[in-house]
């Protein structure tokens, strides 16, 4: 049984890492997003292997079901992202490497060093590790403040996005038809070119 779990763990980790590498390797942005989804899915499977069922399903629900759909949606609605040349990702690879290394040093290394690697006996069957009830009470009692702060942060980000997206249109006095919008866009481009 232990061997089986280890094999599954290796397979899942290979999937996650391979998919993550493919995210940055692929030229096509949509394909990148798809690999990212595969990677998220793998992490969900890893949680499942740790018997954190709630966390696994939440991972799928939030990352695979919501965030990735938004990513895909944003890519599809943005002009010329899907057909542009893919080299842009590689231009500052050293910067990305630096940031990743620093993040690794700041977050992961202290955890790894501080970890006591002696494996204790498995917790008894009764004590659920991360059940829905435990998570709920933790969020609503002990960690209420961080929880609420995160919620406010998300709300601010949402409002900000709407303001940015509608700043120009909100100043207009009326809603334009699609043709008028297009004409306006062309005129703006012409003005821009003349300047």
């Amino acid at each position, binding site marked *: 049984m232990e061997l089986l779990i280890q094999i599954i763990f290796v397979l899942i980790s290979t999937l996650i890492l391979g998919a993550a590498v493919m995210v940055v390797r692929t030229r*096509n942005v*949509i*394909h990148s997003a*798809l690999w990212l*989804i595969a990677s998220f899915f793998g992490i969900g499977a890893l949680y499942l292997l740790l018997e954190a*069922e*709630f966390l696994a*399903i*939440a991972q*799928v*629900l939030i990352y*695979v*079901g*919501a965030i990735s*759909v*938004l990513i*895909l*949606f944003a890519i*599809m*609605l943005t002009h010329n992202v*899907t057909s542009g040349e893919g080299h842009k990702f590689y231009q500052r690879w050293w910067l990305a490497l630096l940031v990743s290394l620093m993040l690794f040093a700041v977050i992961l290394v202290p955890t790894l060093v501080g970890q006591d690697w002696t494996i204790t006996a498995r917790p008894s069957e009764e004590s659920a590790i991360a*059940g*829905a009830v435990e998570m709920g009470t933790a969020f609503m009692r002990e960690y209420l403040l961080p929880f609420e702060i995160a919620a406010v942060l998300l709300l601010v980000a949402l409002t900000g996005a709407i303001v940015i997206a509608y700043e120009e249109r909100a100043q207009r*006095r*009326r*809603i*334009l*038809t699609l043709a*008028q919008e297009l004409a306006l866009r062309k005129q703006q481009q012409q003005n821009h070119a003349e300047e």
Partner: protein
Amino acid sequence: MDDIVVQVLIMLVQVVVLVLAISTGFAYLTLFERRLLARMQNRVGPNRAGPGGFLQPAADAVKLFFKEDVIPTLVDRGVYLLAPALAVIPALLIWAVIPFGCLNIAGDYQACFADPATNPNLHNIFQLADIDIGVLYLLAITSIGVYGITLAGWASNSKYAMLGGIRASAQLISYELALSSAVLAAVMMAGTLSTHEVIYQQMTMWFVIPQLLGFVLFLISGTAELVRAPFDLVEAEQELTSGYNAEYGSMKFALFFMSEYIKMIAISAIAVTLYLGGWNAPGLELLGSLMTGMAGPLVGSIAVGLASFLVFLVKVVLILFLFVWMRASWPRVRYDKLMYMGWKWLLPLALLNVAMTAVFVVVLPDALIHSVALFVASLVVMAVAYVVSSRVKPAPSRSRIKMVQPEVPRRPSS
């Protein structure tokens, strides 16, 4: 070791039977829908293949199988081939946690009706996996279903398909919120996320009574989630040929079709499980005790199993009938009105329902009293929403924003 092998074998058999049964169910659902629609529109419908059109699904399947498998030249090949699979797999996965009956293989029918917290030795072979977070699993899997449609639209490299795909993803992520909030209120009533326990909690009263508002919201947003009429803008054939699946043919098209109908059965099954008491019906326990007294515990549990499956089936077919009825009755919603309704009506109402449920359940601890109070409150909210929504015009005509009328060249009057 043998024990594990036997368990895995049982599970495999369950999975194969379940998938075959669902596929058959899908095939006959298409016939059911076509005949029923025809009936409602004063037509005859398909009645030539077999007695009363009974073999029509088989004929359709054969036709689709033998069509030429065309892959357009400029599609993104990998994603194009992946998309139909991504559409069907979640639709099938949903079924893993839905209990469509209660056949205790241990031969004791009473385990079905006992409190799952105190009586855990129930081995129900009519439910593939009774996991602690079944309802959350349902939501997670439904939310993955968007990918098939979106990616099909993108990979096809065609304007119509792309527009259909974009519309679909916008619609699905908008209505998912209302759907999840409606489900959340039902979960709060039950106090559990396990599907079997949700049904157990409904032994005394179906949740459709206290959660009337939630049930209505669930049905509306469920229809939108299925992209069915009146919310089928994704495949508005007058504007988009057939939307995201325009470039798909033969079996790949059939897979999209299949996923849509399987999801329709699944949403009906979820509605039955969460709101209509699942497989349970009054008198099942009596049947169990009668059969046990007459022919022993095994026969008793088998009788309860089959009867509960039948009850479940009848309830699901009733909801499916409702879906077909809706399709026959209402025209397609305009796109901006769809978004308007999703965000400005369904989501606030769903949130109100959640708040209402929380307050009533906490303030009135007695189950009967808070159920009745919630029922009355639901009726009031629905009445108010109806009155207000019929007064408010969806067009933003109130303030300085004005709609511009396109100038139509006038015809010379003769």
